[in-house]
């Protein structure tokens, strides 16, 4: 059945990830919706949450956040955007990835029009996202079984559809971008950057009054206009149609370009001249003085340099911006954090209070290590993919010990994370100096440098799993682990989860170094587990059969 058409074959390729993402997000929503009535049981708790809303408006618009639907929509308004990662990866792999592998040459040797092929692949993606929406909707509705809520199955399905729509938008962006670049990875990286920019653009109007017109440029803005779990707010059909229109327009443009360009080539932008091939003379020279070619470590650094630059801009920029956010809303935040049992719990993870700028910033700063850990996920994926694609075979035909090859790559990643952390430190210190938000220098150093072991832990786990699992499964698992860790520290204290459960999250051990400095024992736990994962990775890599 699955091999009857390109559409069905593509759908078959999507079945595992779509079930994984659907079940993951659906179960998360079910747990949250089931538990929220307990969290919001007392009038005091509800009042505290309501008071908290405006201060965190930059994160998501607070609407009826003292109801389970409102609270879930608010708290997960932004985080559900991680769902967009899968369509980005899938859509860049669909046409551009298959061109890279050469499999599209074979596929197009059958009597099948290019446009038909591309349309079937796009249709498969949309179908998969629809299935995802239904899974999320059904599971979210299942969470209401024992909770008193004011929304029904139709609303939870619409909630799923809204997420699927925003995911489809970024999938379409990825498909469009991949017509202009030679590599799948580049297209995915650019689209991830576009996603980040769109998230920030959407935030702008909630931070700076009168900037609605800027946020309207972002598809995320239209995603946030629908809140199906809040019946009084409802679903904005127009906004959903805007997302659908963007998806259709970008997908159609991508298919149009794909049909017209050379297979394996990119769309030639007007004004970008190319040297005619006939003018080129063969060169027999070798590069001179290229330091990146001197060793596995140096080459790995060369490979990681460009992604490091982009991630540095994102992480350091985010951290500096958080300082500015604290400056903008310091007094409001301080009073709320001190009076809010929910946020007190959240901050208490590191054993702290909210009485200072550092305390407030500390609560927001948790996103910086998460971003750095996400960078580590992308780099462990690259190792895993190189292993799977056989790119290490020729390197290992040279007299380089396997363990050196692996540790060389890991050391380059470690160097990159140190560089990102140091530049984040510099950016945050500069922002602190410019805005006048006083921060303890030593603790700021602790907060930024403590991110390094966390990122390396994630990478080491990814490296270890690559010894047994395919790259896609490995990356999926590590990403899922990261999401779970985040959910535990973000949600656990509010839901009164036991300390033993909170300790399962690596982020728990990060604590609030901006406030309390380095907690050596906690950092040592991360270092120890990371070292054990790396040792396991090395042991496995030294012994395993290399993929053919």
């Amino acid at each position, binding site marked *: 059945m699955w091999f009857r058409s390109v559409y069905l074959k593509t759908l078959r390729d999507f079945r595992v990830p779509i079930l994984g993402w659907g079940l993951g997000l659906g179960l998360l929503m079910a747990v949250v919706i089931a538990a929220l009535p307990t969290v919001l049981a007392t009038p005091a708790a509800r009042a505290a949450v309501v008071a908290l809303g405006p201060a965190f408006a930059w994160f998501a618009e607070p609407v009826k956040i003292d109801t389970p639907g409102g609270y879930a929509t608010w708290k997960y308004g932004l985080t559900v955007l991680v769902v967009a990662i899968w369509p980005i990866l899938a859509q860049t792999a669909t046409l551009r990835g298959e061109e*890279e592998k050469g499999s599209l040459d074979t596929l197009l040797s059958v009597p099948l029009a290019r446009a038909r092929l591309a349309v079937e692949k796009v249709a498969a993606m949309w179908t998969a996202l629809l299935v995802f929406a239904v899974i999320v909707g059904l599971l979210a509705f299942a969470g209401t079984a024992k909770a008193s809520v004011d929304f029904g199955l139709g609303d939870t399905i619409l909630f799923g559809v809204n997420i699927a729509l925003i995911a489809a938008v970024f999938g379409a962006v990825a498909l469009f971008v991949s017509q202009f670049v*030679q*590599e799948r990875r580049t297209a995915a990286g650019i689209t991830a950057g576009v996603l980040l920019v769109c998230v920030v653009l959407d935030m702008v109007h909630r931070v700076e009054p009168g900037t609605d017109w800027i946020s309207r440029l972002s598809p995320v803005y239209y995603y946030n206009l629908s809140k199906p779990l809040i019946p009084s707010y409802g679903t904005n059909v127009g906004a959903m149609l805007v997302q659908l229109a963007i998806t259709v327009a970008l997908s159609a443009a991508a298919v149009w370009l794909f049909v017209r360009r050379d297979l394996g080539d990119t769309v030639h932008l007007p004004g970008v001249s190319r040297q005619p091939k006939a003018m*080129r003379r*063969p*060169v*027999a*020279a*070798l*590069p001179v003085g*290229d330091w990146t*070619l*001197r*060793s*596995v470590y140096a*080459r790995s650094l060369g*490979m990681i340099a460009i992604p490091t630059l982009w991630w540095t801009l994102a992480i350091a920029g985010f951290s500096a911006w958080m300082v500015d956010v604290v400056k903008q809303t310091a007094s409001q935040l301080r009073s709320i954090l001190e009076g809010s049992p929910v946020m007190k719990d959240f901050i208490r993870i590191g054993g702290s209070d909210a009485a200072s700028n550092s305390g407030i910033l500390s609560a927001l700063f948790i996103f910086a290590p998460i971003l750095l850990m996400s960078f580590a996920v992308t780099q462990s994926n690259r190792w895993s993919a190189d292993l799977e*694609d*056989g*790119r290490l*075979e*020729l*390197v*290992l*035909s*040279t*007299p*380089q*010990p396997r363990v050196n090859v692996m540790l060389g790559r890991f050391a380059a990643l470690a160097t990159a994370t140190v560089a990102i952390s140091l530049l984040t430190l510099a950016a945050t210190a500069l922002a602190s100096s410019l805005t006048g938000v006083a921060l303890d220098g030593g603790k700021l150093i602790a907060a930024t440098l403590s991110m390094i072991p966390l990122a390396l832990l994630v990478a080491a786990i990814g490296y270890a799993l690559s010894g047994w699992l395919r790259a896609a499964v490995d990356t999926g698992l590590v990403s899922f682990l990261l999401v779970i860790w985040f959910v535990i520290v973000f949600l656990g204290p509010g839901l009164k989860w036991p300390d033993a459960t909170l300790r399962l999250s690596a982020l728990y051990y990060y604590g609030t170094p901006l406030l309390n400095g380095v907690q050596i024992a906690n950092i040592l736990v991360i270092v120890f587990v990371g070292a054990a994962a790396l040792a396991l990775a090395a042991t496995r890599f030294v*012994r395993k*059969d*290399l993929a*053919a």
Partner: protein
Amino acid sequence: MTAVIKTEKLTKDYGSGRGLLDLELEVQEGEVFGYLGPNGAGKTTTIRLLMGLIHPTAGAASIFGLDCWRRAVEIKKVIGYVPGEPSLDPNLTGGQILEYFANLRGRVDRAYLKQLIQRLDLDTSRKFRHYSTGNKRKVVLIQAFMHKPRLLILDEPTSGLDPLNQQEFDRMLIEARDEGRTAFLSSHVLSEVEKTCTRVGIIRDGRLVRVGGVAELKDIRRYEITISFAQPVPAETFEKLEGVAEVERLNDGRTVRLAMQGAADAVIKAAAQFPVVSLTSYEPSLEDIFLRYYEPDGKASKETAGVV
């Protein structure tokens, strides 16, 4: 002579009957050993076991007396390797790839490296992703030869090369052989094996079914004689003769094609009783021998049993 490559009951079991079984093989110093077999026979598995990229399920393989798995790093100092499906960083130029591998290997004579680049006419300024299949093959060939290794392990080395570059590769291989270096190459290009190899091994379904010198293999007494007579001749004339394996009478009734295995003396004497218009003898090429080994089960082994 010293055995450069030695395998003892080397086995790699992938399950479902796939893999390599009890391979016993020796390749002597200075030999160019051709390793033949159809797709999935176990050629690449053997090569990857020798390279220490995968470890054996049972048995052992050694190169220069060193265990291929445990002493892989030492062995690779003296090996040049061409994988069957080379995968390299698509963003590096050919020149960058060669410089990188020269650095990883160490002690590479850059002048000789440039000479190889010129011999194979490689444009080193292009990115690997933009190379044609043939040019990609050139890059991996150059990196395999650039440090003048004592042993070359080459998996389908000329796949994708144009005839001119195939000839240049043949010359490079013969030069290596003349310098006393050893090569182990798998190939489907049998003419190339005939030209460059001193010995050949044939592998089928994971088992080595035949090893011998190229000349020895061609000496299998299975060949064809086609005789045209002036008038029709009864086919039975040749059927019971010594050395005749099969008789085929062609459509005109005056021509017979004889599949021979052994001396032709009896056939010549029998044919002499009739007026002969023409007589041609066709000696098998290595390709014919190779294909015979892959005829349906039973047939090949029966016909070649006891030969060589």
